[in-house]
Structure formats: C-alpha cells, structure tokens
C-alpha cells in the first residue's frame, strides 16, 4: 500500500479504542511541545520539582517492592513493566498496535537462556545479548510491518509472532520444545542470587535503564516526530520526515526494550517455555497497556504491577479462571475508563 492511503487507514484504525482515545491527549501534547514545556497526556503543565518527586517516589516504591511482596512477583512486575512500556512506545507514541510483541519478548528469553546455559555468561550480558537477538528479529519483521497501519499492522505482527512460535515449537534441538529450557543459570560474578529477593535488586538497574531509555526517546525530538507521525503521517511526510524509517526505529527500540524484559523473565524464572512466545503473552502486554493508560509510560508500569499482583492474588487464593477476571476488568476499562488507570486518574484529578 502506498503512503498516500495511510491517512484513510489511520482513520479506519481510529475505530479501535487505542488510537481514537489517543488522539485527544497527544494533540494537546503536541501543541504544548510547540511552546517547549513538557506536559503529560492531559495537557497540564507539571512543575519540574513534582516530576522529580514522582520519579523519586517511584524509585522508593521500586526499592521497597520485594519487602512488601513475594519477591518472585516483584521480579515479574519489573519484567512486565518493561514489556508493557515497550508496547506503549509503539501503541501510545507511534500509533502502531503490535499484537505480536511476544515474538521479541520470547526470542530474547530463549536467546538469553541459551547464552546463559551454554556460555555461563553473567546474567546482564546474557540479557543484553537476548535483547539484541530480539532487535535482529525485529529488523525484517519491522521493515515489513511498518508499511502497514492499524489492523493490518496488528495482523502482520501477529502472523510473524505465530511463525516464531511454531519455529520454536519445532526446533526442538535448540528450544527443547514442550519441555522448555530448564535450569537457566543466574550467574553474576559468583554472587549467590538464588533467592529472588536479591535477584530483584540485581535486575533493577537493567529495568530502570530500559525504562529510562524509552522515557528519553519519547521526550526527545525523535519522540516528538513519532507523535507527529501518529497524529498525521501525511503531514509528517510532507514536512520531510522519512516516516517509515522513524517507525522502524521506534519498532526496533520497542523490540529491544521488550527483549530486556523477556531476558530478565527467563533468568528470573530460570526457565523458558513456549508460553513466552504464545499470542496470549502479546495479548497480556496490550491489556496491561490499555488498563494502565495508553501513551502515559507511567500507566503501563502501574498496569503491570496491578495485573501481575491481581493474577498472583487470584492464583494464590486458588481461583483458576484468572482470564475471566482480567477480561471483565478489561471490558469495563474499555467501556468506562478509556484512558486507563493512570490516564483516568490524572484526568479526573486535573478536572477538579
């Protein structure tokens, strides 16, 4: 499809919750950007000190987390936060709804696991290799996918993700098929990280790094161009921006971040199973972003904490139909709080 038809597609895609809901916040943001002041999605100007207070409090919460929660759950929250933020970068800031991000999360999980098992690398190095493997996969996938928008983009990414899933399922000599990669070591210069409690702190810098990377990208001129492309690709092109190349760059950055999360997930569970590549994993990431608030960055982090905590709580209570509850909450969110948890809260408080 040629670029000329892109705006029509964009309009068509606006039927989906994600894109439509986005439009309001982002235009406000784009306007505010013109004046050079950082603003959140709703359009309120945030004082610098409050921004730092927010970051500081988030750090405190992050540092305290495994003391108040089962450490395994804390590790999961950190991994899913990275994954959700990666999806939000595409969905919220580039207007691309990827439904196949499990491919990057899972590829990195396998690559990380294999690197750790075969070469006994320190885990941050293995995770980095895993994330790079995800980027390598994202180059051809992204190159083809960004030529489409809206539902077509979602379908192309889903198709690639399913291909990767079946390849992993069949390539037993490497992935061990249904058995999964068992006993992934958790190596870091001879430190004993057997306990998830300590592993959480060892992994935290990587998570913080990944989140900072996306935050920096979004609040850079590059991020502004992405937002412009999302709102009006034709105009962005007319202004001389190579739209596809920008989208591809965002796609690769997103794959890298998802890869960091996937790699940590593999090390955290010391195990990689086919589930990391399953389409439900992609779906869960999208659900987290929508629940948390699209295009907010804080939202996906809060969403990851909420969903992971809820799933853990339900499963601990012996309730097995977890999908029923998260699904119902998702439907309610889409119907009533389209801005998501963070987005709605911010919007509601600002109105008062």
């Amino acid at each position, binding site marked *: 499809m040629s670029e000329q038809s892109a705006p029509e597609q964009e309009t068509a895609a606006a039927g989906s919750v994600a894109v439509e809901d986005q439009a309001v916040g982002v235009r406000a943001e784009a306007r505010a950007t013109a004046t050079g002041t950082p603003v959140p999605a709703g359009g309120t100007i945030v004082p610098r000190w409050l921004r730092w207070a927010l970051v500081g409090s988030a750090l405190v*919460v992050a540092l305290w987390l495994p003391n108040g929660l089962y*450490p*395994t759950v804390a590790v999961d929250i950190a991994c899913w936060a990275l994954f959700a933020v990666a999806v939000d970068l595409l969905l919220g800031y580039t207007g691309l709804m990827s439904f196949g991000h499990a491919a990057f999360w899972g590829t990195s999980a396998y690559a990380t696991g294999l690197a750790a098992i075969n070469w006994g690398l320190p885990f941050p190095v293995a995770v980095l290799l895993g994330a790079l493997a995800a980027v390598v996969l994202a180059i051809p996938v992204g190159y083809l996918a960004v030529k489409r928008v809206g539902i077509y983009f979602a379908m192309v990414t889903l198709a690639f993700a399913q291909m990767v899933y079946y390849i992993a399922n069949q390539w*037993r000599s490497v992935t061990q098929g249904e058995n999964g990669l068992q*006993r992934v070591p958790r190596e870091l210069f001879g430190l004993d990280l057997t306990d998830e409690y300590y592993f959480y702190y060892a992994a935290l810098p990587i998570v913080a790094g990944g989140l900072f990377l996306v935050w920096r990208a979004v609040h850079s001129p590059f991020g502004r161009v992405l937002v412009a492309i999302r709102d009006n690709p034709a105009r962005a092109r007319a202004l001389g921006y190579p739209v596809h190349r920008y989208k591809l760059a965002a796609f690769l950055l997103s794959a890298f971040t998802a890869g960091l999360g996937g790699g940590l997930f593999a090390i955290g569970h010391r195990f990689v199973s086919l589930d990391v590549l399953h389409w439900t994993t992609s779906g869960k990431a999208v659900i987290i972003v929508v629940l948390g608030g699209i295009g907010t960055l804080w939202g996906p982090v*809060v969403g990851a904490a909420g969903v992971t905590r809820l799933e853990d709580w339900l499963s601990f209570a012996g309730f097995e139909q977890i999908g029923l509850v998260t699904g119902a909450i998702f439907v309610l969110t889409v119907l009533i709080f389209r801005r998501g948890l963070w987005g709605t809260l911010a919007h509601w408080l600002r109105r008062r």
Partner: protein
Amino acid sequence: MRTKALLVMLCSTALLASACGGGGPQSAAAGGGLSDGKVVFGVLNDQSGAYSQLSGKNSIKAVELAIADYQEKYGDKAVVKEFGVETADHQNKPDVANAKAAELYDRKAVDVILDVPTSSAALKVADVAKEKKKLYFNISAATTDLTGKSCNKYTFHYAYDTYMLANGTGRNTTEEGKKNWYIVYPDYAFGQDMEKSFSAAVEAAGGKIVGRDAAPFPNTSGDFSTYLLKAPTLTPKPDVLGTMQAGAELVALVKQYNEFKLRDKGVGLAVGLMFLTDIHSLTPAALAGTTYTDAWYWNYDLTNRTFADRFKTAAGVRPTFAHAANYSAALQYLEAVQAAGTDGSDAVVKQLEGKTVSDLFLRNGKIRAEDHRVVHDAYLAQVKAPAEVTEEWDYVKILRTIPAAEAFRTPSPDCKL
C-alpha cells in the same frame, strides 16, 4: 491543587503495588522440631486436564488416609500433631508447575511436594526442590531423568518410570513373537524418554522398530488418525503399534485404533502406560487382552483390597497405582519425620536413604541412597475379556510379578546427588 492531585496518584500507586504483603527473604527451618509446628503436604498435579483422572484431586484423599493411619499408629507418641494439605493445579505446564511449586514451598509452608505428573513439569519441580532444599516425592511422572541427570538430594522418584514400563511391556510383548514395532509417542520429556526406553527394550529382546512418530503434546484436537492410517502401510508391516500416550490422550487413541479396525489388519496394540481409570473410561471390551506393566493393583491381595475399600468410601472410585503411591509416600515421609523427630529436610532425607520398606504400595521396597529411586515389585497385567469382569473396576488380572531387583534399572552414572 494540582500538586495535591498528583500526590494522591502517587499514594494510590504505592497502595496498588502493596495491596497485601508477603515479606522478605525466607529463611529455611533449622534445627529440631517442626517448622511452623506442623507438617504440610503439597499435592501438585493436573486437576483439569488429560491426567486429572489418574491422580488429580483424589490424590489428596489418599494423603489424608495416610495421615489418619499415621495418627492411629502413633497416637500420643506422634511427633507430628498438626497437619495441612495444600494443593495446586499445574495444568501439565512446566512454567505453571515452576511457579506453583515455589509458591507451595515459600508461601504455603509446604514441607513436601507429592505427585506431579507430566515429566517436563516434574523435572522443573525437581529444580525447585533442590533450590529450596525441601522434599519432593515424584509419584506420577515417568521420566528416568529424575533419577538420572536431573537427580538431586531432595527428590525421590517413587512409583514407576519409563524403564520399568519398557522392561515389562516392551520385552514381554517382543518375546511373545511380536517383533516389529511402530511407536507413537507424545512429544515431550515423558514420550521421548518412553520411546528411548521401549526401543532399547524391544531391540534387546530381538525386536525391531520399523517406525516411530512424535505426536504433538498436549494434543488439543485429540486426533491420531495420521498415525493410525500410516501404521498398516509401513514396510515391513508392524506387528504391534506401541502407543506411549497417557491419560485422556491414550483413551482417544485407543478409541480411534478400534474405529480403524487395526487389529483386524494385523496390527496389535501395546500400551506403554495405562492407569485403571483409563481402562474404566474405555471399558475393558476396548482393551481386552492388552498386556501392560502395572506398579500396583487394587484387587491383587487382601491388603490392597482393604485400602481400596477405604479409598472408595472417601473418593467414590477405586484407586489407581498413583493414588496408592501417594498414600505410601505420605506415610513414609511421616515415618521418617517420626524417626528423625524433626521435619528438617536434611534429617528426613538421612532417614529415608537406603531404607528398606514394605507397605501397601511398596512390596520388597527399598529407597535407594545412590539415586533416590524407590524400587519395589512391579506386575505384568492383562486386561480381562468383558465376560471375565465380575465386579466394576476389577478389569485386570496379574500375569506375573516382576521382582524389585529386575523391575528397575541400576543406578545411573549420570546421577550425582
């Protein structure tokens, strides 16, 4: 105003994340006495899928019977006064098993995990047991890797394994003159291991594998026609189709085997692993004459029958060997705690290692110290013809007993505890 609003947001985030707490790193129970003043069993198995009948929720009943027997035997002298039984459904997925096992040990104060069918999940739980230094008796998974390269100090493999099944069924069937085998197996640790063990046993007995196919696991469609149509076309034509499927998948395959009338086409059926509940679902008519290896049979003698009656009162069905083995493992664990005076893992392991036991399930049993394989007598069984069945659930006659020394392999050099 706005500042206040954002601060409220911050607080709500913190609240959301904390909701209700779990606590920092857990320290292992040390020294004598009981951790938390009681012994907690964790029954981790399939409660909704293909393997939910052969052990499933009824295994909890078996553990409860063991607790009752322990209390009756020791009365006031019992070291353990309080008991708990926790349970979780691992859905036959290793990743779920991984999370649930860690949860049982860490957050539900479980001292010993029992059961765990599905070899891939079972192997993962062995890693968790090793990491947490807590006991784990595997009952219903078959892979020999549990006592091979994945063995560890805290894992015991209790009821059976692929070597036992292959050595009984594979050898016996081949020696009967069915030399050419076509093997169909589910493609995960259990099936792969079964295929290897059966191939070795058949070839050692002078047979030949003319074809082998891996079927996807879990087989969500329940369709095995590809393999069943292929079987008679192989050259040389196989004398026997060896199916390594288990539970509900076995039931589906045998039904389709009968629909395709493969027996009339000269392809016999050998079953790698079969539980009483499988015969019950299929009815004995569908399987009449099939020989297989059984680890325990409820109507073998009076002791078994008495237990089976108690079990039936509690659970409504006759016990499979997995149920009996869960009972036995729970009982032997309590005996070891009684002898050690503590539920500290290392002390209990010391009590168990090298112990010779005879109980309901373990006949001429021994808990091998070298690889933690629990060896005991096994049985070559044959499904009765429908006319011979006089009582519901009594579907099998025992052809011969395979002595403990012969039934299991010698300790593997791969195992380093």
